[in-house]
């Protein structure tokens, strides 16, 4: 989780604990530099990215930094308000999904985990090199 407010980490961690049968390790970093460093270790499967991280403007600056670092796992954009028009461009900046902070609860976390760990392609074409 990348968020400049450590309180959000505490809250998300608590929400995750409440989901039955889910075992997730939630790391916390406060800025994008630390996040880039963290995904570089290869231990990160998914990133929850806060939209506004000082000193950056918004996800349009930060998400590409994660991708440039070679991170190919899902990036979820979290913000207290995702109603601004520019949020609609999220996929163009390498973000997989967006969710309002107030929408995050056990059910949402369960769906996210199942959705983004699901095998979308059949065995036949998972990585059939040509």
């Amino acid at each position, binding site marked *: 989780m990348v968020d400049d407010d450590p309180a959000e980490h505490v809250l998300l961690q608590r929400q995750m604990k409440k989901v039955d049968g889910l075992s997730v390790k939630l790391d916390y970093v406060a800025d994008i530099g630390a996040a880039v460093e963290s995904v570089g270790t290869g231990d990160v499967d998914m990133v929850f990215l806060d939209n506004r991280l000082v000193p950056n403007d918004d996800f349009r600056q930060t998400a590409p930094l994660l991708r440039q670092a070679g991170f190919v796992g899902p990036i979820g954009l979290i913000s207290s308000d995702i109603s601004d028009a520019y949020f609609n461009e999220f996929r163009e900046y390498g973000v*997989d999904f967006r969710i*309002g902070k107030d929408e995050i609860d056990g*059910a949402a976390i369960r*769906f996210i985990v199942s*959705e983004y760990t699901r095998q979308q392609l059949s065995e036949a074409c998972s990585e059939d090199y040509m």
Partner: protein
Amino acid sequence: MLAPETVFHQGPELERAVNRMDFFRLFKSLAGSHGVQFFGVVEIPGETASINLGQAHVLHNFPGSWFEDGANCLAADPVVSYLQQSTAPIVLEVEGNSSAFVGDNCSPRVLVVPLQAASGKRYGLIMSGLERPVAHQQLALIALDAALIFQRYFEVLLSLDSISGLSEREIQIVRWTSEGKTSSEIAIILGLSEHTVNSYIAAVLRKLQVVNRAQMVAAALRSGLIS
């Protein structure tokens, strides 16, 4: 941020939705605004077949522990058989433990809204564990909102199955695939997640009606989508 009080067909969120997560959020918000925690949009198979929650277009947040193998729901389930036989929204009072959609210690009240896609395929919205009885008018409103969200879901994602023509992003991914790149390599090249790349590939497979990458590239070459 979704405003739960907002009636969906008046809100801009519906217009903005672009991926499965967004539609999950919309249905979740609809359920939440009526005090429902668990819900699912499922594809209704032919008569007497069971429902598989693992299918590509299903959106749900039911706990896996409720179902066999975490995803299967028998045709004998009263919710499933209602969906197979009816097209009208209803609130079912399920007896005992007869339905998988009623969790332990949950209310036996299940709200079912059959939905019909323009392609002819039938789907259903299931909202389980309603604490309070549902008034007729409220049921009608839920059915209307469900139909509106589902219609949009169909337009944005489900109809891809029947639409020919690939988006620019999809063509890029097919082209890279034709050059032997794996999903994760393409993800790095395009600055996307592997998940998203695979979503695109899955969409292309459906559009070209093929089952693997080799066929996908061949079909794309044949139809001149790539060269």
